[in-house]
Protein backbone atom coordinates (compact mmCIF):
# COMPACT_ATOMS: atom_id res chain seq x y z
CA UNK A 1 0.00 0.00 0.00
CA UNK A 2 2.88 2.30 0.69
CA UNK A 3 4.40 1.57 -2.66
CA UNK A 4 1.26 2.52 -4.47
CA UNK A 5 1.15 6.11 -3.47
CA UNK A 6 4.57 7.17 -4.68
CA UNK A 7 3.77 5.45 -7.93
CA UNK A 8 0.66 7.40 -8.35
CA UNK A 9 1.71 10.82 -7.24
CA UNK A 10 4.56 11.57 -9.64
CA UNK A 11 2.49 10.46 -12.54
CA UNK A 12 -0.17 12.84 -11.44
CA UNK A 13 2.21 15.70 -11.55
CA UNK A 14 3.43 14.53 -14.87
CA UNK A 15 -0.02 14.61 -16.25
CA UNK A 16 -0.75 18.12 -15.19
CA UNK A 17 2.56 19.28 -16.53
CA UNK A 18 2.06 17.57 -19.81
CA UNK A 19 -1.29 19.08 -20.23
CA UNK A 20 0.13 22.52 -19.82
CA UNK A 21 2.90 21.81 -22.23
CA UNK A 22 0.48 20.51 -24.76
CA UNK A 23 -1.57 23.63 -24.59
CA UNK A 24 1.41 25.92 -24.90
CA UNK A 25 2.60 23.97 -27.86
CA UNK A 26 -0.72 24.18 -29.50
CA UNK A 27 -0.17 27.52 -31.26
CA UNK A 28 3.26 26.47 -32.43
CA UNK A 29 2.34 23.24 -34.11
CA UNK A 30 -0.67 23.77 -36.27
CA UNK A 31 -1.57 20.12 -36.21
CA UNK A 32 -1.11 19.68 -32.52
CA UNK A 33 -3.54 17.14 -31.18
CA UNK A 34 -5.57 18.85 -28.47
CA UNK A 35 -7.45 20.84 -31.04
CA UNK A 36 -8.62 17.86 -32.99
CA UNK A 37 -10.76 16.13 -30.37
CA UNK A 38 -13.16 19.03 -30.35
CA UNK A 39 -15.09 18.46 -33.61
CA UNK A 40 -16.47 15.00 -32.84
CA UNK A 41 -18.41 16.42 -29.93
CA UNK A 42 -20.52 18.50 -32.23
CA UNK A 43 -21.40 15.63 -34.44
CA UNK A 44 -23.00 13.54 -31.75
CA UNK A 45 -25.62 16.09 -30.98
CA UNK A 46 -26.75 16.06 -34.54
CA UNK A 47 -29.86 14.05 -35.05
CA UNK A 48 -28.06 11.15 -36.48
CA UNK A 49 -27.65 12.43 -40.01
CA UNK A 50 -24.41 12.91 -41.81
CA UNK A 51 -23.50 16.51 -41.26
CA UNK A 52 -19.85 16.84 -41.99
CA UNK A 53 -18.06 14.39 -44.15
CA UNK A 54 -14.60 15.83 -43.56
CA UNK A 55 -13.97 14.95 -39.93
CA UNK A 56 -15.80 11.73 -40.32
CA UNK A 57 -13.58 10.39 -42.96
CA UNK A 58 -10.64 11.46 -40.89
CA UNK A 59 -12.08 9.58 -38.01
CA UNK A 60 -12.49 6.59 -40.16
CA UNK A 61 -8.90 6.80 -41.21
CA UNK A 62 -7.82 7.22 -37.67
CA UNK A 63 -9.83 4.21 -36.76
CA UNK A 64 -8.20 2.12 -39.38
CA UNK A 65 -4.76 3.50 -38.77
CA UNK A 66 -4.98 3.39 -35.07
CA UNK A 67 -5.98 -0.20 -34.77
CA UNK A 68 -2.95 -0.65 -32.56
CA UNK A 69 -4.13 2.21 -30.42
CA UNK A 70 -7.54 0.67 -30.41
CA UNK A 71 -6.32 -2.08 -28.14
CA UNK A 72 -5.61 0.43 -25.44
CA UNK A 73 -8.87 2.10 -26.11
CA UNK A 74 -10.67 -1.13 -25.53
CA UNK A 75 -10.00 -0.89 -21.81
CA UNK A 76 -12.05 2.24 -21.19
CA UNK A 77 -14.78 0.78 -23.29
CA UNK A 78 -14.97 -2.23 -21.11
CA UNK A 79 -15.06 -0.16 -18.01
CA UNK A 80 -17.80 1.84 -19.61
CA UNK A 81 -19.94 -1.17 -19.51
CA UNK A 82 -19.78 -1.82 -15.83
CA UNK A 83 -20.42 1.54 -14.31
CA UNK A 84 -20.61 5.08 -15.53
CA UNK A 85 -18.27 6.55 -13.06
CA UNK A 86 -16.14 3.59 -12.32
CA UNK A 87 -13.83 4.47 -15.10
CA UNK A 88 -13.58 8.03 -13.99
CA UNK A 89 -10.65 7.61 -11.71
CA UNK A 90 -9.21 4.63 -13.45
CA UNK A 91 -9.00 6.40 -16.73
CA UNK A 92 -6.75 9.03 -15.37
CA UNK A 93 -3.92 6.57 -15.52
CA UNK A 94 -4.66 5.62 -19.07
CA UNK A 95 -5.00 9.21 -20.11
CA UNK A 96 -1.59 9.89 -18.76
CA UNK A 97 -0.14 7.28 -21.00
CA UNK A 98 -1.86 8.69 -23.98
CA UNK A 99 -0.89 12.26 -23.26
CA UNK A 100 2.69 11.24 -23.48
CA UNK A 101 2.44 9.90 -26.96
CA UNK A 102 1.20 13.00 -28.73
CA UNK A 103 3.69 15.14 -26.90
CA UNK A 104 6.68 13.25 -28.16
CA UNK A 105 5.35 13.36 -31.63
CA UNK A 106 4.57 17.00 -31.38
CA UNK A 107 8.10 17.82 -30.38
CA UNK A 108 9.83 15.61 -32.88
CA UNK A 109 7.71 15.79 -35.94
CA UNK A 110 5.35 18.67 -35.60
CA UNK A 111 4.38 18.77 -39.23
CA UNK A 112 6.19 16.00 -41.01
CA UNK A 113 3.98 13.01 -41.07
CA UNK A 114 0.26 13.44 -40.86
CA UNK A 115 -0.74 9.81 -40.41
CA UNK A 116 1.33 9.41 -37.28
CA UNK A 117 -0.13 12.49 -35.73
CA UNK A 118 -3.62 11.50 -36.53
CA UNK A 119 -3.32 8.18 -34.82
CA UNK A 120 -2.73 9.60 -31.33
CA UNK A 121 -5.40 12.13 -32.01
CA UNK A 122 -7.72 9.23 -32.37
CA UNK A 123 -6.47 7.83 -29.11
CA UNK A 124 -7.12 10.96 -27.14
CA UNK A 125 -10.80 11.40 -27.70
CA UNK A 126 -11.27 7.74 -27.05
CA UNK A 127 -9.40 8.02 -23.78
CA UNK A 128 -11.36 11.04 -22.73
CA UNK A 129 -14.48 9.29 -23.70
CA UNK A 130 -17.49 10.06 -21.66
CA UNK A 131 -19.09 7.01 -20.22
CA UNK A 132 -22.42 8.54 -20.80
CA UNK A 133 -21.93 8.23 -24.50
CA UNK A 134 -23.32 4.79 -24.73
CA UNK A 135 -26.16 5.77 -22.52
CA UNK A 136 -26.98 8.45 -24.99
CA UNK A 137 -26.69 5.91 -27.69
CA UNK A 138 -29.12 3.64 -25.97
CA UNK A 139 -31.54 6.43 -25.41
CA UNK A 140 -31.35 7.47 -28.97
CA UNK A 141 -31.83 3.98 -30.17
CA UNK A 142 -34.80 3.34 -27.96
CA UNK A 143 -36.38 6.53 -29.15
CA UNK A 144 -35.79 5.90 -32.77
CA UNK A 145 -36.12 2.18 -32.67
CA UNK A 146 -39.66 2.08 -33.78
CA UNK A 147 -38.87 4.38 -36.64
CA UNK A 148 -35.65 2.72 -37.55
CA UNK A 149 -37.05 -0.72 -37.56
CA UNK A 150 -39.36 0.34 -40.23
CA UNK A 151 -36.68 2.25 -42.02
CA UNK A 152 -34.24 -0.59 -42.02
CA UNK A 153 -37.02 -2.77 -43.17
CA UNK A 154 -37.78 -0.31 -45.88
CA UNK A 155 -34.22 -0.17 -46.96
CA UNK A 156 -34.05 -3.89 -46.99
CA UNK A 157 -36.99 -3.95 -49.27
CA UNK A 158 -35.57 -1.37 -51.58
CA UNK A 159 -32.21 -3.03 -51.75
CA UNK A 160 -33.73 -6.29 -52.59
CA UNK A 161 -35.72 -4.54 -55.22
CA UNK A 162 -32.61 -3.02 -56.67
CA UNK A 163 -30.77 -6.29 -56.62
CA UNK A 164 -33.38 -8.39 -58.23
CA UNK A 165 -36.34 -6.43 -59.28
CA UNK A 166 -37.97 -9.58 -60.46
CA UNK A 167 -38.16 -10.97 -56.94
CA UNK A 168 -41.64 -10.50 -55.57
CA UNK A 169 -41.99 -8.78 -52.21
CA UNK A 170 -44.71 -10.28 -50.17
CA UNK A 171 -44.47 -7.59 -47.49
CA UNK A 172 -45.53 -4.71 -49.64
CA UNK A 173 -48.45 -3.95 -47.36
CA UNK A 174 -46.16 -2.48 -44.74
CA UNK A 175 -44.50 -0.05 -47.08
CA UNK A 176 -46.99 2.81 -47.01
CA UNK A 177 -46.39 3.37 -43.29
CA UNK A 178 -42.86 4.63 -43.63
CA UNK A 179 -43.07 5.92 -47.15
CA UNK A 180 -42.28 9.51 -46.26
CA UNK A 181 -39.26 8.47 -44.25
CA UNK A 182 -37.99 6.37 -47.02
CA UNK A 183 -36.46 9.07 -49.18
CA UNK A 184 -34.55 10.70 -46.38
CA UNK A 185 -33.21 7.45 -45.15
CA UNK A 186 -32.05 6.27 -48.45
CA UNK A 187 -30.13 9.48 -48.72
CA UNK A 188 -28.36 9.37 -45.37
CA UNK A 189 -28.13 5.81 -44.27
CA UNK A 190 -28.04 3.86 -47.45
CA UNK A 191 -25.50 6.04 -49.18
CA UNK A 192 -23.27 6.27 -46.19
CA UNK A 193 -23.31 2.60 -45.69
CA UNK A 194 -22.28 1.88 -49.16
CA UNK A 195 -19.68 4.58 -49.39
CA UNK A 196 -17.85 3.32 -46.40
CA UNK A 197 -18.34 -0.27 -47.27
CA UNK A 198 -17.80 -1.24 -43.64
CA UNK A 199 -18.90 -0.16 -40.24
CA UNK A 200 -16.45 0.79 -37.50
CA UNK A 201 -17.86 -1.93 -35.34
CA UNK A 202 -16.61 -4.48 -37.78
CA UNK A 203 -20.07 -5.52 -38.89
CA UNK A 204 -20.44 -5.36 -42.60
CA UNK A 205 -23.66 -3.64 -43.32
CA UNK A 206 -24.16 -5.00 -46.77
CA UNK A 207 -23.61 -8.62 -45.92
CA UNK A 208 -26.41 -9.64 -43.64
CA UNK A 209 -27.11 -13.32 -43.79
CA UNK A 210 -30.77 -12.84 -44.62
CA UNK A 211 -30.09 -10.82 -47.75
CA UNK A 212 -29.50 -13.81 -49.90
CA UNK A 213 -32.14 -16.03 -48.43
CA UNK A 214 -35.86 -15.67 -48.28
CA UNK A 215 -36.23 -16.04 -44.53
CA UNK A 216 -37.41 -13.47 -42.07
CA UNK A 217 -34.77 -11.50 -40.23
CA UNK A 218 -34.73 -11.62 -36.46
CA UNK A 219 -34.88 -8.71 -34.09
CA UNK A 220 -31.25 -9.04 -32.90
CA UNK A 221 -30.10 -9.05 -36.48
CA UNK A 222 -31.98 -5.88 -37.22
CA UNK A 223 -30.66 -4.33 -34.06
CA UNK A 224 -27.06 -5.09 -34.90
CA UNK A 225 -27.70 -3.79 -38.35
CA UNK A 226 -29.06 -0.60 -36.92
CA UNK A 227 -26.03 -0.10 -34.73
CA UNK A 228 -23.71 -0.87 -37.58
CA UNK A 229 -25.27 1.72 -39.82
CA UNK A 230 -25.51 4.19 -36.97
CA UNK A 231 -21.83 3.94 -36.26
CA UNK A 232 -21.03 4.01 -39.91
CA UNK A 233 -22.83 7.29 -40.36
CA UNK A 234 -21.45 8.87 -37.20
CA UNK A 235 -18.22 7.28 -36.10
CA UNK A 236 -17.80 9.92 -33.45
CA UNK A 237 -20.43 8.14 -31.40
CA UNK A 238 -18.01 5.36 -30.76
CA UNK A 239 -14.96 7.37 -29.93
CA UNK A 240 -16.14 10.36 -28.01
CA UNK A 241 -19.11 12.43 -27.16
CA UNK A 242 -18.97 15.29 -24.77
CA UNK A 243 -16.37 15.73 -22.13
CA UNK A 244 -15.55 13.20 -19.51
CA UNK A 245 -16.36 13.96 -15.97
CA UNK A 246 -13.09 13.67 -14.14
CA UNK A 247 -12.01 14.40 -10.67
CA UNK A 248 -8.55 14.51 -9.25
CA UNK A 249 -7.93 11.36 -7.25
CA UNK A 250 -8.15 11.90 -3.51
CA UNK A 251 -4.78 12.26 -1.87
CA UNK A 252 -4.72 10.26 1.32
CA UNK A 253 -1.84 10.41 3.75
CA UNK A 254 -1.37 8.65 6.99
CA UNK A 255 -1.03 10.69 10.10
CA UNK A 256 0.44 8.63 12.86
CA UNK A 257 -0.90 5.15 13.13
CA UNK A 258 -4.61 5.59 13.35
CA UNK A 259 -5.53 8.62 11.33
CA UNK A 260 -5.72 9.30 7.64
CA UNK A 261 -5.64 12.73 6.09
CA UNK A 262 -7.72 13.53 3.06
CA UNK A 263 -5.84 16.53 1.75
CA UNK A 264 -7.65 17.66 -1.38
CA UNK A 265 -11.21 17.30 -0.21
CA UNK A 266 -11.96 20.97 -0.76
CA UNK A 267 -10.79 20.73 -4.36
CA UNK A 268 -12.92 17.70 -4.98
CA UNK A 269 -15.93 19.30 -3.36
CA UNK A 270 -15.48 22.33 -5.54
CA UNK A 271 -15.22 20.15 -8.59
CA UNK A 272 -18.42 18.36 -7.68
CA UNK A 273 -20.18 21.58 -6.63
CA UNK A 274 -21.08 20.13 -3.28
CA UNK A 275 -20.79 21.42 0.23
CA UNK A 276 -17.80 19.87 1.97
CA UNK A 277 -19.98 19.23 5.02
CA UNK A 278 -22.28 17.03 3.01
CA UNK A 279 -19.42 15.08 1.49
CA UNK A 280 -17.76 14.68 4.85
CA UNK A 281 -20.98 13.51 6.41
CA UNK A 282 -21.36 10.92 3.71
CA UNK A 283 -17.78 9.77 4.04
CA UNK A 284 -18.10 9.31 7.77
CA UNK A 285 -21.41 7.51 7.46
CA UNK A 286 -20.08 5.15 4.84
CA UNK A 287 -16.78 4.47 6.50
CA UNK A 288 -18.34 4.12 9.90
CA UNK A 289 -15.85 6.40 11.51
CA UNK A 290 -15.38 9.94 12.71
CA UNK A 291 -12.96 12.72 12.10
CA UNK A 292 -12.45 16.42 11.88
CA UNK A 293 -11.29 19.17 9.57
CA UNK A 294 -7.94 20.63 10.43
CA UNK A 295 -6.75 24.20 10.08
CA UNK A 296 -5.74 24.03 6.44
CA UNK A 297 -9.01 22.57 5.26
CA UNK A 298 -7.86 18.98 5.21
CA UNK A 299 -10.03 16.22 6.52
CA UNK A 300 -8.64 14.03 9.26
CA UNK A 301 -10.33 10.64 9.29
CA UNK A 302 -9.98 8.26 12.16
CA UNK A 303 -8.85 4.87 10.98
CA UNK A 304 -6.54 3.70 8.26
CA UNK A 305 -7.79 4.25 4.79
CA UNK A 306 -6.15 3.94 1.45
CA UNK A 307 -6.67 6.10 -1.54
CA UNK A 308 -8.50 3.36 -3.36
CA UNK A 309 -11.01 2.91 -0.61
CA UNK A 310 -11.80 6.59 -0.44
CA UNK A 311 -12.08 6.62 -4.20
CA UNK A 312 -14.71 3.92 -4.04
CA UNK A 313 -16.73 5.84 -1.53
CA UNK A 314 -16.44 9.02 -3.56
CA UNK A 315 -17.59 7.19 -6.63
CA UNK A 316 -20.67 6.05 -4.83
CA UNK A 317 -21.24 9.56 -3.57
CA UNK A 318 -21.07 10.85 -7.11
CA UNK A 319 -23.46 8.26 -8.38
CA UNK A 320 -25.91 8.99 -5.63
CA UNK A 321 -25.61 12.72 -5.13
CA UNK A 322 -23.88 14.27 -8.12
CA UNK A 323 -24.87 12.71 -11.40
CA UNK A 324 -28.35 13.36 -12.65
CA UNK A 325 -30.34 10.17 -12.65
CA UNK A 326 -32.17 11.21 -15.78
CA UNK A 327 -29.46 12.42 -18.10
CA UNK A 328 -26.31 11.36 -16.23
CA UNK A 329 -24.95 14.84 -16.41
CA UNK A 330 -22.73 15.79 -13.50
CA UNK A 331 -23.63 19.46 -13.32
CA UNK A 332 -26.36 19.36 -10.74
CA UNK A 333 -27.23 21.48 -7.76
CA UNK A 334 -28.02 20.12 -4.35
CA UNK A 335 -30.37 22.23 -2.31
CA UNK A 336 -32.08 21.65 0.96
CA UNK A 337 -35.74 22.49 1.38
CA UNK A 338 -37.72 21.60 4.45
CA UNK A 339 -35.09 19.17 5.63
CA UNK A 340 -35.17 17.31 2.35
CA UNK A 341 -32.35 17.44 -0.14
CA UNK A 342 -33.27 18.09 -3.74
CA UNK A 343 -30.99 17.59 -6.66
CA UNK A 344 -31.70 19.80 -9.65
CA UNK A 345 -30.01 19.09 -12.94
CA UNK A 346 -28.54 22.04 -14.78
CA UNK A 347 -28.52 20.44 -18.19
CA UNK A 348 -31.84 18.65 -18.42
CA UNK A 349 -33.79 20.48 -15.76
CA UNK A 350 -34.94 17.43 -13.87
CA UNK A 351 -35.38 17.66 -10.15
CA UNK A 352 -35.56 14.88 -7.67
CA UNK A 353 -35.20 14.35 -3.98
CA UNK A 354 -32.25 12.40 -2.70
CA UNK A 355 -31.86 10.44 0.47
CA UNK A 356 -30.44 12.16 3.45
CA UNK A 357 -27.14 10.82 4.65
CA UNK A 358 -27.79 8.36 7.43
CA UNK A 359 -25.17 7.02 9.71
CA UNK A 360 -26.96 3.88 10.79
CA UNK A 361 -25.87 1.54 13.46
CA UNK A 362 -22.52 2.21 15.04
CA UNK A 363 -21.04 -0.68 16.90
CA UNK A 364 -19.11 -0.22 20.05
CA UNK A 365 -15.46 0.05 19.14
CA UNK A 366 -12.74 0.81 21.58
CA UNK A 367 -12.88 1.02 25.29
CA UNK A 368 -16.24 0.96 26.93
CA UNK A 369 -14.98 3.01 29.80
CA UNK A 370 -14.64 5.99 27.47
CA UNK A 371 -18.35 6.03 26.84
CA UNK A 372 -19.30 5.75 30.45
CA UNK A 373 -20.62 8.96 31.83
CA UNK A 374 -19.53 10.03 35.29
Amino acid at each position, binding site marked *: MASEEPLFDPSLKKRSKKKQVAFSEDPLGADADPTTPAPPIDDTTANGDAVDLGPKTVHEQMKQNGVGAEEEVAEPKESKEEDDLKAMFGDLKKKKKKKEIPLDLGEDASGTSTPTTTAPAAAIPAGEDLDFSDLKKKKKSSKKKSAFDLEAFEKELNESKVKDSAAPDDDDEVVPDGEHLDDIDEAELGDDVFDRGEAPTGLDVGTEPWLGSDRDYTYPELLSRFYASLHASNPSLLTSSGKRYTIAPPSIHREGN*KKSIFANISDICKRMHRQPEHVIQYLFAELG*TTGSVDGSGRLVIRGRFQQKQIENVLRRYIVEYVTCKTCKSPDTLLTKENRIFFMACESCGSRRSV*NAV*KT*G*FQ*AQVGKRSRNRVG
Partner: protein
Amino acid sequence: MNVQNLNTVDPFADEGDPLSGNNDVGSQQNYIHIRIQQRNGRKTLTTLQGLPKEYDAKKLLKAFKKEFACNGTLVEDEEMGQVIQLQGDQRTKISTFLTDEGIPRATIKLHGF
Protein backbone atom coordinates in the same frame (compact mmCIF):
# COMPACT_ATOMS: atom_id res chain seq x y z
CA MET B 1 -44.65 -10.86 -36.60
CA ASN B 2 -44.61 -9.53 -33.11
CA VAL B 3 -43.15 -6.05 -32.90
CA GLN B 4 -42.16 -5.31 -29.36
CA ASN B 5 -41.85 -1.61 -29.88
CA LEU B 6 -45.43 -1.17 -30.82
CA ASN B 7 -46.78 -2.64 -27.62
CA THR B 8 -48.84 -0.12 -25.78
CA VAL B 9 -47.59 0.72 -22.33
CA ASP B 10 -49.37 3.10 -20.08
CA PRO B 11 -46.62 5.35 -18.77
CA PHE B 12 -48.76 6.61 -15.94
CA ALA B 13 -49.75 3.24 -14.63
CA ASP B 14 -48.75 2.33 -11.14
CA GLU B 15 -45.64 0.29 -11.39
CA GLY B 16 -46.10 -1.10 -7.95
CA ASP B 17 -43.79 -1.08 -5.02
CA PRO B 18 -40.67 -3.07 -5.81
CA LEU B 19 -40.36 -3.95 -2.15
CA SER B 20 -43.96 -4.93 -1.71
CA GLY B 21 -42.90 -8.41 -0.66
CA ASN B 22 -41.75 -7.31 2.75
CA ASN B 23 -43.87 -4.26 3.17
CA ASP B 24 -44.80 -4.98 6.74
CA VAL B 25 -41.33 -4.19 7.95
CA GLY B 26 -41.26 -0.88 9.68
CA SER B 27 -37.56 -0.23 9.25
CA GLN B 28 -36.29 2.62 7.13
CA GLN B 29 -36.98 1.94 3.46
CA ASN B 30 -36.72 -1.78 4.03
CA TYR B 31 -33.11 -1.83 3.04
CA ILE B 32 -30.74 -4.31 4.54
CA HIS B 33 -27.63 -2.36 5.37
CA ILE B 34 -24.32 -4.10 5.57
CA ARG B 35 -21.64 -1.91 7.05
CA ILE B 36 -18.07 -2.21 8.09
CA GLN B 37 -16.24 -0.59 10.93
CA GLN B 38 -12.58 -0.45 11.63
CA ARG B 39 -11.28 -1.60 14.95
CA ASN B 40 -7.79 -1.39 16.22
CA GLY B 41 -5.06 -2.61 13.94
CA ARG B 42 -6.29 -4.33 10.85
CA LYS B 43 -9.34 -5.73 12.54
CA THR B 44 -12.77 -4.94 11.32
CA LEU B 45 -16.35 -5.49 12.29
CA THR B 46 -19.28 -6.11 9.98
CA THR B 47 -22.79 -5.14 10.96
CA LEU B 48 -26.03 -6.18 9.35
CA GLN B 49 -28.97 -3.93 10.02
CA GLY B 50 -32.56 -3.88 8.88
CA LEU B 51 -33.21 -7.57 8.53
CA PRO B 52 -36.84 -8.21 7.62
CA LYS B 53 -38.98 -9.54 10.43
CA GLU B 54 -39.71 -12.83 8.76
CA TYR B 55 -36.13 -13.91 9.21
CA ASP B 56 -34.96 -15.16 12.53
CA ALA B 57 -31.90 -13.12 13.36
CA LYS B 58 -30.67 -15.63 15.88
CA LYS B 59 -30.74 -18.51 13.46
CA LEU B 60 -29.23 -16.39 10.74
CA LEU B 61 -26.41 -15.41 13.05
CA LYS B 62 -25.76 -19.03 13.80
CA ALA B 63 -25.64 -19.81 10.10
CA PHE B 64 -23.32 -16.88 9.45
CA LYS B 65 -20.97 -17.94 12.18
CA LYS B 66 -20.79 -21.43 10.86
CA GLU B 67 -20.54 -20.44 7.23
CA PHE B 68 -17.98 -17.67 7.56
CA ALA B 69 -16.06 -19.23 10.43
CA CYS B 70 -16.16 -16.11 12.50
CA ASN B 71 -17.67 -15.05 15.76
CA GLY B 72 -20.55 -12.71 16.04
CA THR B 73 -23.28 -11.43 18.24
CA LEU B 74 -26.76 -10.05 18.18
CA VAL B 75 -27.07 -6.48 19.40
CA GLU B 76 -30.32 -4.84 20.40
CA ASP B 77 -30.44 -1.22 19.38
CA GLU B 78 -33.28 1.02 20.43
CA GLU B 79 -33.55 2.65 16.99
CA MET B 80 -32.35 0.02 14.58
CA GLY B 81 -33.73 -3.03 16.30
CA GLN B 82 -31.72 -6.19 16.07
CA VAL B 83 -28.31 -5.84 14.53
CA ILE B 84 -26.03 -8.72 13.69
CA GLN B 85 -22.38 -8.08 14.36
CA LEU B 86 -19.70 -10.25 12.89
CA GLN B 87 -15.99 -10.21 13.31
CA GLY B 88 -13.96 -9.37 10.27
CA ASP B 89 -14.92 -8.10 6.87
CA GLN B 90 -17.80 -10.37 5.88
CA ARG B 91 -19.68 -7.91 3.70
CA THR B 92 -19.47 -9.65 0.36
CA LYS B 93 -19.98 -13.01 1.96
CA ILE B 94 -23.10 -11.82 3.70
CA SER B 95 -24.54 -10.32 0.57
CA THR B 96 -23.93 -13.44 -1.50
CA PHE B 97 -25.35 -15.56 1.30
CA LEU B 98 -28.48 -13.48 1.48
CA THR B 99 -28.98 -13.37 -2.25
CA ASP B 100 -28.55 -17.11 -2.41
CA GLU B 101 -31.26 -17.42 0.18
CA GLY B 102 -33.62 -15.50 -2.04
CA ILE B 103 -33.43 -11.97 -0.75
CA PRO B 104 -33.48 -9.60 -3.72
CA ARG B 105 -30.19 -7.88 -4.34
CA ALA B 106 -31.86 -4.50 -4.71
CA THR B 107 -32.82 -4.48 -1.08
CA ILE B 108 -29.29 -5.07 0.13
CA LYS B 109 -27.08 -2.04 0.54
CA LEU B 110 -23.39 -2.54 0.90
CA HIS B 111 -21.63 0.29 2.66
CA GLY B 112 -18.06 1.02 3.42
CA PHE B 113 -14.95 1.25 1.31
